[in-house]
């Protein structure tokens, strides 16, 4: 509110703090995915109808409307291609832990047909991050892999993968990832 509004003697202001608590339930499909992540395996579901591999698995194929389960589980690799990225400049609000610019990328994991968002890229100057860049997962040590960050809304790879770094491979050609650019 502006200073003028505050000093207007005819208007009284009150603050109304609102707090709502929610229970976040991790579905059995996501729970299993999280468990596998803690074991160091990235798994997805392969649709028995169209063959597309979803990571993390959803328990169904959204294109074919076919239900999938652990019978359709496949393991994918911990190497990936950057399909798009953002250099994030953190705004300082209450609770913000980030202070410096960082990079979040959308990744297409080798063996998966769905890209995975919000993945942190490290080990490279920010102005050198590019679409098509090849990266590899940097895993947390087994005792660092907690349940935190798992299963929430179907994105993320839990705390098991700390971040991703360039793998040193040549960039992927555009045809390999252009359908996955967000």
């Amino acid at each position, binding site marked *: 509110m502006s200073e003028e509004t505050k000093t207007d003697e005819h208007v009284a202001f009150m603050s109304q703090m609102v707090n709502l608590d929610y229970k976040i339930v991790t579905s059995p499909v996501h729970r299993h995915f999280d468990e596998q992540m803690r074991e160091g395996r990235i798994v997805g579901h392969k649709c028995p109808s169209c063959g597309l591999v979803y990571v993390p698995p*959803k328990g169904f194929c959204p294109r074919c409307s076919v239900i999938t389960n652990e019978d359709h589980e496949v393991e994918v690799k911990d190497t990936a291609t950057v399909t798009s990225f953002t250099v994030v400049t953190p705004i300082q609000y209450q609770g913000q832990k980030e202070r410096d610019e960082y990079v979040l990328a959308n990744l297409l994991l080798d063996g998966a047909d769905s890209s995975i968002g919000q993945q942190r890229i490290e080990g490279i100057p920010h102005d050198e991050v590019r679409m098509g860049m090849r990266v590899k997962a940097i895993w947390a040590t087994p005792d660092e892999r907690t349940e935190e960050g798992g299963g929430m809304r179907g994105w993320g790879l839990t705390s098991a993968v700390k971040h991703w770094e360039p793998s040193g491979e040549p960039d992927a050609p555009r045809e390999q990832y252009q359908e996955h650019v967000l």
Partner: protein
Amino acid sequence: MLPMTDIAIVGYAQSPPTFGVQETETQMLFPAVNEALARANLTRADIGFMCSASCDYLSGAPFAFVQTLEVTGAWPPISESHVEMDGAWALYEAWVRLHHGDIDTAMVFASGITSRCDWREVSALQLDPYYLMPLWVDDISLAALQANALIESRKATERNFAEIAARIRGGDADEFLKEPYVVEPLRAHDTPTMSDGGAAIVLAVGDRARELCERPAWIAGIDHRSEAHYPGVRDLTISDAARIAGQQSGVGKGPIEVAELAAQFSHEELVLREALGLTDGTVVSPSGGALAANPVIATGLVRIGEAANQIIDGGRKRTLGHASAGPCLQQNLVCVLEGE
């Protein structure tokens, strides 16, 4: 008035109401959507328009409805819309859309998971932020005001409420009356059993409906009305909104064999019976209504679906489904269904 197009419900299914569902909302909806389509002998690709209903305040996430869209198999891209209301209003939008005349089928689906939030808190926050919300008055407290108004005007007694609850839940009104109040004069049996659930309805036009369903439930009339915004200016013992919606949808044009009412609280059934002019000849809420299972957002669509099934499977000739939203039956939708 819209030009009359013959539109019927040709398929309906709901997921079994539960509390504490473990699957995602999308997974919960899948069986209901699959079954509703199967009953109409249609696939997703056949549907001309989809309309969904969900509420971000139930799951506590913005755009939560985007994930439930995955049940539609939205590839290639589809024509769809969404309401942040009970699914009955999504059905109304689909009904309007079908009147455009360029498509002949539509599907409506709705879902709500109430087990992941404190619904009483969420319902308090739905109210206007200036006058009501700061009072932190929740849905049960507001319903209790309406129940009290009925008692004070001598239109009803706590025994009347208990008798309605006993009919719907099974049990003995005398025993119910020995229970403590939740918010006076309402006892636990008078308040809805909160649920997680989803439902889907398939609509079709004219001869297409006859082709898809042996006995379609034709929408003879549908209308929705709202009371004044502020409960304090209303006579809570009546519902003008339900009465007008009932008149506009033609409830009184013939006998109603079954009325599925979204009476979340036992006393609301009394208000709705009077507003809709229902007589003892009408069977009210044989499914249990909104009192026995209240998967918020799906509750009203379930009522219309259950009323439709009374025609499709049950061989009835004339039924109605009712939906409501807001405090003390603030908004009311009435859908009159007929068999041929």
